[in-house]
C-alpha cells in the first residue's frame, strides 16, 4: 500500500509551485485516496476516534494551563476558579477530565480489536509496538494529570505510585528522590509533574505519526485477516475518502454523544469524591484507588505479596504486550477462524473486567457473602486478594502459555482466499462451516 500510486494532479499555479517545493497537498490527497479494505467493520473506527481524543485533550489542556497554578497552596483553588470564574471554564475542565476516560475507553477497544483480529502479526509488528508505547505514555500522562488538581486522591495516588519506584532494590531510593524533587511529595513534585504532563502528550503525538507511518507501510489489517494480493486491490479495496471518512465520521459522532452525556450530565461519575478535598499529607483517605482505567494494573500490583514483585508484575503486564507478535505462533490473524482461541479471548475479556473490579475493592474484603472460608498462605480464600491472584494468573497464562500453545495445536477454520468471498457469501456463513 505504501507504493500506491499518487493520483493527485496539481491544478492551480500555486499548487504546482508548492508541489515541487513541499508536496504537502499531494501527501494529504494521497492519504485521502489510500486504498482501504472494504470489509472494515466499526471496530476499525477507533483510530479516528483516538485521534480526536488526543486533539481534544491537547486543545483543552493548553487552555487549562493558561489558568492553572502549579503550587501546592494554589493548585486546588485555581482549578475551582476555572470552574467558577473562567468563561466556559467548567466545560473545558470537564471535557478534559472526562476526555481522559473517553480516551482510555477508546484505546482499550482499539487494542482489543487488534488482539482479536491479529493486527499485531507480521508485517504489522511495528504498528503494534508503537501502539504499546503510546498506551504506556497515555498511562503516564493520565497519572501525572490526575495529580495536578492537588486533591486528596491526587496526593495519595502520587504517594503510592512514586513509592513503587522506591521498591526497586539499591537504585530505588535515589530515583525516588530525583522523581519527587525531594524526600516527600511537595511543591517540587507538583511543578515537575505539571511540566511533564504538558510534555508527554506531544511525545504521544510524535508516536501517533510513527504509528500511522508504520500503518501505511504495512497496510491495514481487516476482519478476515488475510493480506490482500496486489491483483485483487481494485476489487477488495475502496478509497479512504469518502467511504471511510463517512463511516469513521458516523462512529465519531456516536462516540461524542457518549462523551457529551458524561460531560454535561455525569461529569464527576468517573472520578472520586475525595479529590474534591484539598490534599492533606496528614490525613490518609480510607481507600486509595486510581482512576478506573488503571484499576486492572493496580489489581495486578496488589496481587503479589512482595512490593518489588508487584511492581515487576504490573510493568510486565504492559511489557508482555510488546512481545505479543512473537508469542502468538498462529499464522492465522483473525480469531474469526480460530474458535479455540476465541474462547480463550472471551475469557480474557471477562478476566480483564474482573481485574478492574478487584482493583477497586479492599483486598481483604470477602467476594461472596461475608463468611470466611479458610486461610490460604496470607489471606482468606474468599477474598479479593485470592480472586485477584487467580485472575492475574490467567492474564499472564493467556499471553505466555495459551497464545503460543494454541497457535501450534489448534485447527483453524478454512480461511477465505479473498476478502470478497465472505463479503459476498456473508461472513457468518464461513464461520458456521466449522
Amino acid at each position, binding site marked *: 500500500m505504501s507504493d500506491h500510486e499518487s493520483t493527485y494532479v496539481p491544478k492551480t499555479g500555486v499548487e504546482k509551485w508548492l508541489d515541487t517545493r513541499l508536496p504537502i497537498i499531494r501527501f494529504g490527497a494521497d492519504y485521502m485516496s489510500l486504498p482501504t479494505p472494504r470489509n472494515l467493520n466499526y471496530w476499525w473506527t477507533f483510530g479516528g476516534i483516538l485521534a480526536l481524543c488526543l486533539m481534544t485533550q491537547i486543545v483543552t489542556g493548553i487552555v487549562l494551563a493558561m489558568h492553572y497554578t502549579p503550587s501546592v497552596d494554589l493548585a486546588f483553588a485555581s482549578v475551582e476558579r476555572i470552574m467558577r470564574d473562567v468563561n466556559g471554564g467548567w466545560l473545558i475542565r470537564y471535557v478534559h477530565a472526562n476526555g481522559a476516560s473517553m480516551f482510555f475507553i477508546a484505546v482499550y477497544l482499539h487494542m482489543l480489536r487488534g488482539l482479536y483480529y491479529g493486527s499485531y502479526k507480521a508485517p504489522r509488528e511495528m504498528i503494534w509496538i508503537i501502539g504499546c508505547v503510546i498506551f504506556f505514555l497515555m498511562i503516564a500522562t493520565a497519572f501525572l494529570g490526575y495529580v495536578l488538581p492537588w486533591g486528596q486522591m491526587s496526593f495519595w495516588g502520587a504517594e503510592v505510585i512514586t513509592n513503587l519506584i522506591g521498591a526497586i532494590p539499591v537504585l530505588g531510593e535515589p530515583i525516588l528522590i530525583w522523581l519527587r524533587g525531594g524526600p516527600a511529595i511537595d511543591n517540587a513534585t507538583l511543578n515537575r509533574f505539571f511540566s511533564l504532563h504538558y510534555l508527554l502528550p506531544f511525545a504521544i503525538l510524535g508516536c501517533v505519526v510513527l504509528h500511522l507511518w508504520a500503518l501505511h507501510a504495512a497496510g491495514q489489517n481487516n476482519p478476515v485477516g488475510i493480506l490482500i494480493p496486489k491483483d485483487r486491490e481494485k476489487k477488495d479495496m475502496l478509497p479512504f475518502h469518502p*467511504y471511510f471518512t463517512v463511516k469513521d465520521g*458516523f462512529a465519531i459522532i456516536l462516540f461524542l*454523544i457518549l462523551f457529551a452525556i458524561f460531560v454535561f450530565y455525569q461529569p464527576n461519575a468517573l472520578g472520586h469524591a475525595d479529590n474534591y478535598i484539598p490534599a492533606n499529607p496528614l490525613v490518609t483517605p480510607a481507600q486509595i484507588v486510581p482512576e478506573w482505567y488503571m484499576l486492572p494494573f493496580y489489581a495486578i500490583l496488589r496481587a503479589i505479596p512482595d512490593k518489588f514483585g508487584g511492581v515487576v508484575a504490573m510493568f510486565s503486564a504492559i511489557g508482555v504486550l510488546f512481545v505479543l507478535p512473537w508469542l502468538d505462533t498462529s499464522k492465522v490473524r483473525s480469531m474469526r477462524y480460530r474458535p479455540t482461541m476465541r474462547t480463550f479471548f472471551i475469557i480474557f475479556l471477562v478476566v480483564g473486567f474482573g481485574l478492574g473490579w478487584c482493583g477497586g475493592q479492599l483486598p481483604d474484603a470477602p467476594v461472596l457473602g461475608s463468611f470466611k472460608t479458610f486461610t490460604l498462605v496470607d489471606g482468606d480464600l474468599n477474598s479479593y486478594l485470592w480472586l485477584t491472584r487467580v485472575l492475574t494468573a490467567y492474564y499472564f497464562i493467556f499471553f505466555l502459555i495459551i497464545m503460543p500453545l494454541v497457535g501450534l495445536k489448534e485447527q483453524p477454520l478454512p480461511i477465505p482466499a479473498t476478502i470478497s468471498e465472505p463479503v459476498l457469501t456473508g461472513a457468518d456463513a464461513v464461520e458456521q462451516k466449522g
Partner: protein
Amino acid sequence: MTIGMKTVSIKTILASAAIALGLMSAAPALASGVAATPRSGGFSFEGPFGTYDQGQLQRGYKVYHEVCAACHSMNLMHYRNLGDRHGPFWNPKYPNPNDNPVVKALAKEVQVGDIDSETGEAIQRDATPADKFRSPYPNATAAAAGNGGAAPPDLSVMAKAREGGADYIYSLLSGYKAAPAGLQIRDGQHYNPYMAGDLTPFWTGDHKRVPPGGFIAMPPPLQNGQVTYDDGSPQTVDQYAKDVAAFIAWTSEPKMVERKQAGLGVLIYLFIFAGITYVAYRRIWKGVAH
C-alpha cells in the same frame, strides 16, 4: 494433535460472568462498618432537567450564614457569587452581580480584615461583593484549636467531596440519633449513622450487629425554630438541613444549570448530526458490498 474444538458459546460465558459480577457487587453491602445509605432530599436540581430552587437557596444561605458560618469557611465563595445567574439572589436587572443591592447589603453586614492603603495598618472594614466569604478563623491552626483539634472542613465544594452529595449532607445534618446502648462514645464525639467510619472497636454488643455510621466531632448543629424563615417554610431541622444542603450543592456546582442546558443543545445537535451522517453513509455505500 488438536486441542478440544468444542467451543463454549459466548452466551454461556457472558451469562456466567454476569452472575459472578452480580454476586460480587452484592457483597460489600453485608460488610460491617458501613454508613447508612443517605435519604433522598427530593431536591429540585436532580435529574437531567433539574434546576436550583431560588427560594431554597436563599433559605439555605440564611442557615449557612447564621449557623454553619460560625465554624465553617467557604473559601471559594465571594459575596458577588450570591447574585450570579441561577444563584440565590440573582436578579436579571443586575447582570453584574456586584451592582445587585441585595448582594451589596448582605456583604455590608460582614466585617473583613484588610490593610489600610495609606498607613499599611491592619483594619476591619465592611465587606463588598468582591470579597470572599469571611472565614470564621484566621487560619487552620486556630480552627483546629477552637474545635477540640479537628478543624471544621471548608464547605465550598462539600457536595462534590462526599459520596451522595446533597442527599448525604441533608441526611447527616438531620440524622443525629442517640447512640445505641453498647456503643462507647469518646469525649467530644457524637454518633451519626450517616458518618463514614467503622464502629467495631467501640461496640460492646453483638459483633454481628455493629451499628452503621461513625463518630463526628460536630454536635447536632440545628434545632427546630433556630433560624427565622420569612417565606412561611417550616422552621424544622429537616427543612433547615434540606435547604442548607441545597445551598451547598449550588456552591459546589454553581454552573450546573448552564451545564445541563448546554448539554441539551449539544445532544440535540449531535443526534441530528448523527442522523444526517448516517444517511450520507448509506448513500455513499449504496450498492457497495462490504
